[in-house]
């Protein structure tokens, strides 16, 4: 008897340590944002001219900046504005975007045309121009940069929710609910909204990372929170001038941004696989 394998057996899916590591890091960043005192005992604003631009070592784990402030402490305290900008902008965009998307998707032809043309006008403006417009009118600051980023994110969310609600509006379960005699509002609240939200939340989670980069970029350009407040983008910008003599001043804040964005994206993708792999 010769039993011969005609096709190789499927490789078992390995446990994903990457997702665990990423979740752990996201958790760490959240802790830093909520209770920074738990991770460091220093004061982010404590300047010490004597120990300026010290390299990473026993005294200062990640070194110090040009004003002699401990970089680790500043990075820990910098998590809050970065995360706040990321979550705030995404949250605002989700809220406004899904409201517009629902109106467009379920509100009939006129509502659809009006909202979508508005969204297209927003999308046709170059991103940076849109942000500069906001800062020119309202001035720089954390809140305004949140607003600028939300304005940029909102159109794609509105589009997603519009398509989703149109699809779900035609689905078998909405028809079944109609046949049961449920009212329009009950159907939207109970069936359309929650199901349209699943892909939106996945997209938003992934994009929180990009939003943090956007917020940091705006601070880098000088539109974010005012110095000496610790903020990753602003720290990166300040470190630029000393790059040749003290690489750590720019590298560690940059690393904080990159790792946070990477981790959030990994977790987001994982959520996507988990939630969207299901039939709907």
């Amino acid at each position, binding site marked *: *008897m*010769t*039993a*011969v*394998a*005609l*096709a*190789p*057996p*499927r490789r078992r899916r390995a446990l994903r340590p990457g997702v665990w590591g990423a979740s752990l890091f996201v958790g760490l960043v959240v802790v830093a944002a909520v209770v920074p005192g738990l991770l460091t005992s220093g004061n982010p604003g404590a300047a010490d001219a004597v120990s300026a631009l010290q390299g990473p070592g026993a005294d200062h784990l990640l070194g110090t900046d040009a004003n002699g402030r401990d970089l680790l402490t500043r990075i820990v305290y910098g998590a809050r504005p970065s995360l706040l900008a990321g979550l705030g902008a995404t949250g605002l965009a989700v809220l406004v975007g899904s409201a517009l998307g629902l109106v467009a998707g379920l509100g009939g032809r006129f509502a659809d045309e009006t909202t979508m043309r508005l969204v297209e006008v927003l999308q046709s403006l170059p991103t940076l121009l849109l942000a500069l417009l906001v800062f020119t009118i309202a001035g720089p600051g954390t809140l305004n940069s949140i607003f600028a980023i939300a304005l940029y994110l909102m159109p794609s969310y509105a589009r997603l929710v519009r398509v989703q609600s149109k699809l779900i509006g035609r*689905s*078998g*379960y909405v*028809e*079944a*609910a*109609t*046949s*049961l*005699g*449920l*009212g329009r509002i009950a159907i939207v609240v*109970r*069936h359309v909204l*929650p*199901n349209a939200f699943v892909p939106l939340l996945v997209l938003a989670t992934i994009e929180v990372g990009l939003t943090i980069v956007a917020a940091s970029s705006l601070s880098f350009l000088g539109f974010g929170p005012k110095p000496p407040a610790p903020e990753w983008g602003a720290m990166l910008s300040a470190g630029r001038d000393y790059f040749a003599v003290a690489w750590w001043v720019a590298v560690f804040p940059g690393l904080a941004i990159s790792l946070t964005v990477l981790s959030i994206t990994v977790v987001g993708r994982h959520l996507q696989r988990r939630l969207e792999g*299901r*039939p*709907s």
Partner: protein
Amino acid sequence: MSLIELSGLEVSFGDVAAVRGVSLTIEPGEAVAIVGESGSGKSVTARALLGLTGDGARVTAKTLRIDGRDALAFGEKQWREVRGTRIGYVLQDALVSLDPLRPIGKEIAEPLLLHRVVPRSESGDKVLELLVKVGVPEPGARAAQYPHELSGGLRQRALIASAIACDPDLLIADEPTTALDVTVQAQILRLLAERKAAGTALLLISHDLAVVAEVADRVLVMRDGIVVEQGPTGTVLAEPAHEYTRTLLAAVPRAENRAERPPVEGPVVIEARDLVKTFKGRTAVDGVSFELRAGETLGLVGESGSGKTTAARLVLGLTEPDTGRVEIDGRPWDGLSRTERRELRRHIQVVYQDPLGSFDPRFTVRRVLDEALAAGGEPRTSRRARAGELLELVGLDPALLERRPRHLSGGQRQRVAIARALAPKPRVLVCDEPVSALDVSVQAQVLELLARLQLELGVAYLFISHHLGVIHQVSDRVAVMKDGRIVETGDVREVFASPRADYTRELLAAVPRLPEPRLREEIAS
């Protein structure tokens, strides 16, 4: 020398064994059928003959010889030489199997050029010849058309044409007629029989014993990856030796399975008068009238595009007719306020062909039923208990309440859909192809359940199906639809025994039939 010699085939996907020790030989020019329900391993067996089980499968066999050559030693290159030239493969769904961006002529020419059957300059003529061979009318014009421009029957013919392009010794057809109307199915079966007469060996895969009975010389009945019975078609169908084959045969919906039905004396619950509905200039429903009494089943039968589903939507008040009216319990849909309409809706409920699509994917069975009970005015306090009762009513374990429908089997899902439809205590149930997606044994159980519920609850059924056997088994009266009109209506037994309309006769003639099972005593003596 046998064309195919397979023994001890084992296929597993991860920990799941799909095929467990199947042996099969096919002689040149022979027609063999593998019959089984979903998950029986019939398609996987066929795909193993083409080396197409996929990366996830672990495949072993004691022997696999194709035309005398040892296929166990084949690499991808040798398999590619076998596919198309020695073995042609026809899949169930011609729409997804044909490239949507290429005219069918190009699609059929591809294997010709790939295997260098004819020089490029002659491929056009060869394509036309093939299209004629599979009975495609106006082959010149059709060859330039795209799959979506063709009807299901023509698509299936085009697919068969590409499979036989290189004149293979064996043609494997996996459920070749399942997606087709009964009259088209009859044509495709004739076409397959012609190929067999021309000397091509056939391997038919089907869940439908009646379909294979017409073409196959030999039948293998598979269940759970094992061949439970095999033999000449006539013998297996007439004197089934294995219990499972007998169950399968008994489950086939047909007139003999009709339960005794009490005479219908209830009041009229649906009255449809002169319904007309046009979509963008195409008339879907054209002057349809019927009535339905409490406790009665009206079978609405017709082929795809005959307007039966549109008629159902008009009755359900989900679509407004252009003219005509529908009255539920004497109350017409039109002229009601939105609130009154919503109140009326719970008196007429619906069960769909695809139950899964009709459940919110986030909902558990409990929430599905809870919503329906609430719509029927059941107070919150008693809903929990009622949901359990409903599941028991449709023959399910109340423990399933916490499951999500996508984790249930097809039959269980359809039972949940029926439970939901019954929750608001409707007078009428519209069943739109409720068993078409189910395996034949499950089909029989669901039909039995519907019959029992009707006796217990006195609910009326508007039962839509393309399957004449199903209609014959469940209906009191039947309405035959074609092109938006009812061409014939009357008592189902009378209509099927002596049809008056030509179309009804045509439909009935096209139904593949099983040979009458011989009585067991007769065999014994």
